[in-house]
């Protein structure tokens, strides 16, 4: 990499002289410049719509007539194998809570509580055969985001920007849009870089005020005073640098101060949704009470990927899908908040052609049990189910109108074409042009991979 090019980038080095140290250089410098993929790919960026808490597959996407018929009867199998072992109040079979219909030419099933998403059935690729390894939120969240059951491992987004960098150096490569109402379960660990260098961690854009921490002054001072002081700083640093030739880090430092001010402009511009037409805003449900908040985040996500941001993650506060009680009303509320914004996002991406290069992922950390769960004297919710759940994908090299994998008559276990979290990750990486085996990080002599030691399966059946 030429020096001139270097000067325009944020970069990171392991020590002041290591930038050219042979043998160490592979791990010595980490930056966010765009990297070439391992193979040609359709997807350039990802929008992950994360549905915290575990949406119910049998109520939303994976209809189970047998379950409906047996509503209220005891579960015929071994109840010990059901749900989360920590909550032993296993109730009776509980049929789907909403009417379901087939949609589009593909005939995908969706519940009537998702009317907008349903109208785009032919763009969706439903994976009904997802499964994971742990029935607790914490661990299942670590798993779905980082491929491991424990904290401290890099998330999918971190791996993606580690592998591909970003197309826009004035914005963070990996942006997190979390709910103004609060952080999701597990908080900032949903976007940690783990043992990868901190440049690869997700940057949360705050919903109100300044989008990035410290992006604007937290004290007041007349602008011309700030300008004067900045000019002093610039001159001091220039002469400091001049006295110390051959120290590229000092050049980069000066650049990072300049980038800081560019970022102030770029972030402000990217986040200004008033630049969108009223029609576009309405498409996302902005202005309507139920959908305004999620709609804004979806629209921001589009504006960010449009500007070259590689990975955008959208969260809901805490875990609205986690319906141990009152599933029918809780899920309805969660659908009302998200259905129109999600469909708006897909339509908007589609009409601008961005959907071809943007992979949209919808799903949570696990699914829900076919049986109800006792809460007091009522049986109105479902427990966690790690053995089967549904996620969907759209765009970015994924086939539309596909229903993949099957579950048993109750939606309890996967019966055909299981997709593990590692398989899911490997498939997403594949869409982005990354090969899971070639994407590794040398950690104390150990090659760490998102998808672990045993090779996963890229689910080719889902690819265009």
């Amino acid at each position: 990499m030429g020096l001139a090019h270097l000067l325009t980038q944020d970069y990171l080095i392991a020590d002041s002289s290591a930038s050219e140290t042979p043998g160490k250089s592979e791990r010595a410098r980490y930056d966010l410049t765009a990297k070439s993929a391992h193979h040609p790919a359709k997807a350039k960026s990802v929008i992950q719509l994360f549905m915290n808490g575990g949406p119910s597959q049998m109520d939303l996407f994976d209809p189970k007539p047998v379950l409906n018929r047996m509503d209220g009867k005891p579960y015929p199998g071994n109840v010990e194998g059901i749900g989360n072992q920590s909550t032993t109040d296993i109730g009776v079979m509980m049929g789907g809570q909403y009417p379901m219909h087939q949609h589009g030419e593909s005939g995908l099933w969706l519940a009537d509580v998702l009317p907008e998403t349903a109208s785009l059935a032919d763009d969706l690729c439903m994976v009904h055969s997802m499964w994971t390894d742990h029935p607790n939120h914490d661990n299942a969240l670590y798993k779905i985001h980082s491929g491991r059951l424990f904290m401290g491992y890099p998330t999918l987004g971190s791996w993606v920007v580690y592998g591909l960098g970003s197309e826009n150096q004035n914005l963070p490569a990996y942006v997190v849009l979390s709910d103004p109402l609060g952080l999701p379960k597990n908080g900032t660990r949903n976007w940690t870089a783990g043992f990868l260098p901190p440049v690869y961690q997700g940057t949360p854009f705050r919903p109100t005020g300044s989008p990035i921490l410290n992006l604007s002054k937290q004290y007041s001072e007349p602008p011309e005073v700030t300008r004067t002081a900045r000019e002093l700083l610039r001159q001091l640093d220039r002469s400091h640098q001049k006295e110390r030739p051959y120290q590229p880090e000092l050049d980069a430092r000066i650049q990072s101060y300049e980038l800081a001010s560019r970022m102030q402009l770029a972030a402000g511009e990217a986040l200004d949704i008033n630049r969108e037409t009223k029609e576009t805003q309405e498409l996302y449900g902005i202005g309507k009470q139920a959908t305004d908040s999620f709609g804004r985040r979806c629209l921001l996500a589009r504006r960010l990927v449009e500007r070259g941001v590689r990975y955008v993650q959208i969260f809901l506060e805490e875990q609205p899908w986690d319906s141990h009680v009152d599933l029918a009303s809780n899920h309805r509320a969660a659908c009302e908040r998200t259905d129109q914004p999600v469909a708006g996002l897909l339509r908007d991406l589609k009409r601008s052609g961005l959907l071809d290069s943007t992979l949209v992922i919808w799903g949570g950390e696990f699914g829900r049990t076919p049986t109800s769960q006792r809460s007091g004297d009522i049986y109105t919710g479902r427990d966690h189910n790690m053995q089967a759940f549904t996620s969907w994908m759209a765009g970015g090299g994924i086939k539309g109108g596909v229903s993949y994998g099957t579950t048993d008559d109750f939606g309890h276990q996967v019966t055909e074409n299981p997709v593990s979290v590692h398989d899911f990750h490997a498939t997403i990486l594949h869409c982005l042009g990354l090969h899971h085996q070639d994407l590794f990080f040398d950690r104390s002599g150990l090659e760490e991979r998102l998808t672990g030691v045993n090779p996963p399966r890229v689910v080719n059946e889902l690819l265009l």
Partner: protein
Amino acid sequence: MTPTDESQRIQNRLTKGSFVVASQYVFLLTILLPIQSSLAADRVNNDADSVNESELLVPKPISNRCGKCHGAETRKGDLDLSSLVGIRAGGESGDPLIDQKPLSGRLWQVIQDGEMPPENEAPLDKEEIEQIKSWIQANHARLREALSSEKPKSIHDVLPTLLLRCVSCHGAQRTDGGLDLRTHASIIKGGESGSALVKGQPDESLLIRRVESQACPPGHLLLKFFVRRPSKAEINLLRDWIKAGAPEGNVNPDIASDAPDPLVSESDRQHWAYQPPQKTTRYQSIDNFIEQQLHEINQTFSPRAERDTLIRRVYMNLLGLPPSLDQWLHWHDHPSPDWYSMMVDDVLASPHYGERWGRYWLDLAGYADSEGGISADPIRPVAWKYRDYVVRSFNQDKPYDQFLIEQLAGDELTDHANVQELQPEMIDHLIATGFLRMGIDETGSRTMNFVPERLKVISDTISIVSSGLMGLTMECARCHTHKYDPIPQRDYYRFKAIFQGALDEHDWKSFKQRKLSIGLDKDRKAIAATNPPLAKQRNQLLQQAKQQQDNLTMVTLRSHYPAQSEADQSATLVALKVADNQRTLPQRLLVEKLQRAQAIPDSEQISAVLEARLNLEKIEDQIQRVDRQMVPPLTIRALWDNGRPSPTYILKRGEHDKPGRLVGPGVPSVLTDGETPFSYSPPFPDGTAKTGRRLAFAQWLTSPQHPTTARVMVNRIWFHHFGQGLVSTLENFGVMGQKPTHPELLDWLAISFVENGWSIKTMHRLILNSRTYQQSSRVTPQAKKGDPQNKYYSRMPLRRLDAESIRDSLLFVSDQLDTTQGGLPDPVSVSSEGEVSIKPTDTSKWRRSLYAQYRRTEIPTMLDTFDYPQMGPNCLERSVSNVSPQSLLMLNNRQVRELAASLAHRVQSLLSEKTGKADDPTKNQHPEDQYNLLIDLTYQITLSRSPTLQEKTLGRETLKHLRNRLSGNLSLALESYCHAIMNSASFLYVD
């Protein structure tokens, strides 16, 4: 040679327990007689027993070509293909070599896929491949039969299952029904309901009946004791064992013996780091070694750095703080020609030294004030005692060998339960064992205390010890033999057995139970005298805090939803006390409504809300103040041996329910001569039961001849002085690690370290007084050309301050640093925007960053931004990034700005002190001169030097300009000026 001769020859060899393949076919010692299933050690010793009727022949290509690495003597991957016994035992992966279909087993698969022979060996030719294939096909049925006729032969075939599924209730911690299932004798003896089994009759055996009827383990206790039911295969194994007469067998654990090691060869030990450091007489100083290599590349030392540069360098390097104004003046004007070495001695004696160098150690140990692993991220209330122990040890210059022994085996140094009178250092030894308890530990959680989670805690500890202290990466060997380094999986589990007395996954203590309460009488008395009234006060404050919290909620609701009914408001309070996923829909809606109101920015909240919030914070601060007034509890977060370790088994692929053979404690074979058993004995034969395993390990690790201990540590010390190690991979001295740039120097330093009584401060003196260290950091064109990466130390590197040094220096120069040492960590607060800040102490100043609470989920933003590490499980080398959020923080953050204001204030007061004196000639001077003095002071305080002429001119012009823009307000102008200096590269970098 005729076949008859050949067979005779082989027969002869067999009697010696080993053989070499030299001919087309080998007669096989075979296995139609049941033999030990899992015991490779025995299969070497017992070969003679198995020689008998059957004559399955292993073809030459397998025995000869494969057998080169996978034979009885050299058993790569723990696989012996020279005999059917070995083929049945399989390798460490646990994959069947011969499977259901003739060509589906791993033996054929690796050949077919070309995976074997490995790249550096000649491939098999067509004929050889054909020979193997037809042998497998022809003998498949017989092989299968031979391989599957295995019967359990010993207690160790079933004990892993009993440990996993039964001993929680029938073992060390509980003996429900009077039954203990940990030994053969106690199983036979049984409990209140009689023997657990009837030999030869599984159906009649209580054990089988209870398990098969699922009466055991009882469903309602599965989660309480973190047990899962045995699998069908496990039950069948139990059945088979009982059917076979429940044999105890005579199985000895696999430990190092005085026979040559079949898994690690002499040539494996030849790697430089596995050989003890070599003494050299060629040179006797650092500079000689460095200069000689510089000479070889036609380079020379850079000139000595200027005095001010050296002063700042030594202070920042040893203390993480710049010199005070007085200290700087003292050394700046010091008349002695030996001023430099005097300064080094002086700085090394500072109590701040331990805070700086102790921090490096805490990174290595993975120090944290919380357990991690689960969302709640529980606080470790007394982890700080270990932090203080480390700081103390560095300040005392505790010999490194002793330092290690205390941390690895402090509990085995004194019989604390039986000692006449406790001494403070005995307590310190227990605190020291906190080193082994720093990894993430979720086992205190309600749902995360199963064996796999416990194994993860153990593996974190092993990883910290091996990479941090021995320069070995052993993690890979948890699942399979290390790919590059000669660390067989066996050695990982032998190593694990060293810790089994204290970290036993089948006799586990969660972090909640793993604490000791041991203290001196005077501490006990102090607690009794001081704490009770404070505890009462604390409880009252907690009550107040709860009320205030409710009050804040109500005020918030009333201000934003004046129309909301009182009933709904009280219902909100109730809803908040229900776990989030247990709330009913109406409760959920109420809480969301509240959250929406809370999310509104402060600027739009009414004053009553802000006031209530402030009141709540005040009460919380008061609670924390009371906490700090209390005498610390006697609780120690220690690790101690229980003297009753479970057997240790190799876990195939690292999976907790795939046990392999039994191993005993031992150290990595490659770091030994391979022929010396690991010996240990209980340290208190007449006192408390302890295995003595860790003590023996610690003594082995600190023996003067140890190949890596001293090297790893001196390399680490070197790294923290020069920003690069002589071995650049600090944590990996193995085959995949980097070779030392100056091997002779590394060994010379390691030997000096040991000879000087493992004194770390002596190493600092040696290094800091060298010419190498005192060089200028300027890069000349020649040096750039001849030594571009400074591999040869033709100059000192320019280095950015690390996270703590930046924050501590900012506080120090602005006179906002509270230098109180030790004790409870300083709490942090998290703003609604997610910014984590460290709270000030009662002095309204802040302590050093070392004392900030390190909660894994609440890392202070300022430190995080400058690469403060995430401990996973520890950090052996921090990365240094250069990214714009750092600039944004330094320029825009409120606290940094306030520190700039404090600095400006300090500079002005110093000046007025000076000008206040009547005889001071600066009095009533021209503003220009006043600016000059302000600039001088600012530079001297922040950068430990005077400004250059150019910097002075620039400063004057800027101050004038700023002051004009600020209606003549000099204080504000100076604040802005100081803020720029704090942002400058001169401040953030050290030459």
